[in-house]
């Protein structure tokens, strides 16, 4: 190949080496935030030159649950809510592996909520990337554990009356050693946080507030995906290391973004290994 012809060739998308090309096109709606999250994740892998032989990408059920299937990596699509329990088994069985769980708010915090808080409590090394679009998208837009009060969904047609979870506060209170929130607008900051989280050993959590223009944002008259992104720009404020309990998430007023927790704590598989070594020596 001559120098000229190389230049004239259209270059591949820079993250394509991390993607299962034979699975494209993907199933996600246009303007959905999942695309941004996957792109940021792949960009982080590329900038870290991550050894993909040591990573397992795991997801649960839902729109985001399909994420694991698009990466050219060891990957597993569990049943609804069980990605973190599966990831715990992976990490404990083979500590050289880094599990990455990519899933939605309903999967991780309703049906899978118990697994989330206990993996965080144990500090099992994994990155949990949660795409929070405030509803169950794949099943048609039902209310879930993050749906704001008074929001309209197909199962809260007259307005949601339940109090939602504040995910970063749940993660911090459960013991996660890295906790961040961004919106789908903050692609570069999100990428940086993913890079940081991947280099930490322990339970790390990143929430990404994401448009669902097909369902949630349409039911609630938020306009097109582009309009939702504009709104994110308008109402987002960055407050790194502010108290995650106070990290407001309100579409009418403001969304507090940033890295709230970045701490150190002994990691579970390391503790298990140390414990085993002591016992094997007969201590």
């Amino acid at each position, binding site marked *: 190949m001559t120098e000229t012809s190389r230049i004239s060739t259209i270059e591949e998308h820079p993250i394509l080496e991390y993607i*299962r090309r*034979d*699975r494209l096109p993907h199933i996600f709606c246009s303007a959905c935030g999942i695309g941004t999250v996957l792109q940021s994740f792949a960009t982080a892998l590329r900038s870290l030159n991550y050894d*993909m*032989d*040591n990573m*397992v990408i*795991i997801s649960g059920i839902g729109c985001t649950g399909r994420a*694991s*299937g698009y990466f*050219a*990596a*060891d*990957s*597993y*699509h*569990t*049943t609804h809510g*069980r990605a973190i*329990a*599966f*990831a*715990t*088994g*992976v990490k*404990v*069985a*083979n500590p*050289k*592996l880094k599990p990455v769980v990519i899933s939605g708010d309903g999967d991780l915090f309703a049906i899978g909520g*118990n*697994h989330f808080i*206990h993996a965080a409590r144990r500090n099992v090394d994994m990155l949990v990337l949660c795409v929070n679009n405030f509803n169950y998208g794949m099943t048609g837009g039902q209310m879930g554990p993050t749906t704001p009060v008074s929001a309209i969904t197909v199962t809260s047609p007259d307005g949601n009356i339940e109090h939602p979870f504040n995910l970063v506060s749940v993660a911090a209170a459960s013991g996660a050693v890295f906790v961040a929130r961004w919106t789908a607008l903050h692609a570069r900051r999100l990428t940086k946080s993913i890079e940081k989280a991947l280099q930490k050993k322990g339970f790390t959590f990143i929430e990404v507030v994401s448009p669902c223009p097909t369902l949630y944002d349409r039911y609630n008259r938020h306009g097109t995906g582009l309009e939702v992104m504009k709104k994110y720009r308008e109402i987002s404020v960055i407050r790194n290391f502010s108290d995650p309990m106070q990290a407001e998430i309100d579409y009418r007023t403001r969304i507090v973004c940033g890295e709230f927790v970045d701490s150190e704590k002994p990691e579970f598989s390391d503790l*298990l290994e140390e*414990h*085993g070594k002591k*016992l*094997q020596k007969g201590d």
Partner: protein
Amino acid sequence: MEKPILTGEMFTQGDIAAAEGALAAGCRFFAGYPITPATEIAERMAYRLPRIGGRYIQMEDEIASCTAVVGASYSGLKAMTATSGPGVSLMNETIGLAAMTEAPMVLVNVMRGGPSTGQPTEASQSDIMQAKWGSHGDYEIIALIPSSVQEMFDLTIRAFNLSEQYRVPTFVLADEIIGHMRERLIIPPEDELEIINRKKPTVPPEEYLPFKPETDLVPPMATFGEGYHFYATGLTHDQKGYPVMTDEAQLALVPRLCDKIRKNADKITQAESTETEDAEILLVAYGGEARTAMRAVKDARAEGMKIGLFRPISVWPFPKDQLKDAAANAQQVIVAELNYGQLVGEVERIIRNEVPVHFIPRVCGTPHTPDELMKEIRRRIK
């Protein structure tokens, strides 16, 4: 480091024998949640595994336990959990996932009285059908039922072997009697144990199709971290492992998941026939209940009655040919179970209407007494 295989003799419980059988089979991962009457297995594993380089984790519930076992299995370790009926009820979701993604795993269910919380410290055999049909959809599992402490050990090893060979969740279905009773356990030297490991791929990663079966209908299994970069999903999938929602994909997958067990059933089924050759009455019993039946056979033979015992050791797949052989000369079949009627349906299905099949249920926490079985035998022989 302590020895993984404690060759020698010990006087111990069935639950402990199951744990030691697992370790002898090469199990190096256990995830579980406390539950009577299976907790002794977790306790033994919590003590033993870290001392031999294995991993023990107590999870937040049985759903997580079973799911972590599948994760560990896909990460290359032989893995198991142990529980009782209420725990299996929670695990059934993941048992379906393990069946669908063909994850080798062993699950010991030390059965207690149900439904619901039932009788935690009492024996029962009422999860026979739960083991077979617990999760949704069409699939097959393997289930083995021990009748002694020694068999808890032997059959746990066999459960691992079958699970690895066929990439299928495999149950050891013990009842509380066998789980908690103590007897002599003989653990043979390592070189006398037959251990089977899953087939590994022989092709390079770019040619590997994770769900392409070989002639035995079982695909070779790569594990995470080996560079194969494969995908597995609980959705209906093609040989690549990719989700495909077509009739063709479902037809290529689901019958194979069942047939890899059904068509290999002659290699899996296991049963024991005692004094059946000239038996006019054939008793059918398994697990702890089979020990009463064995006594009844001895007592009845002493009285000159022609009685034999058929003891299924694999209940799923059911040893139907062996049952037909054992019942060849029988004029009546009596099924005794520690439940209100479960495996008797399978026996009736196989015997058809050729001879009458009688059933003696027992829904309280100990096996029938020998006298109770003798009474039924005398009543039927007249």
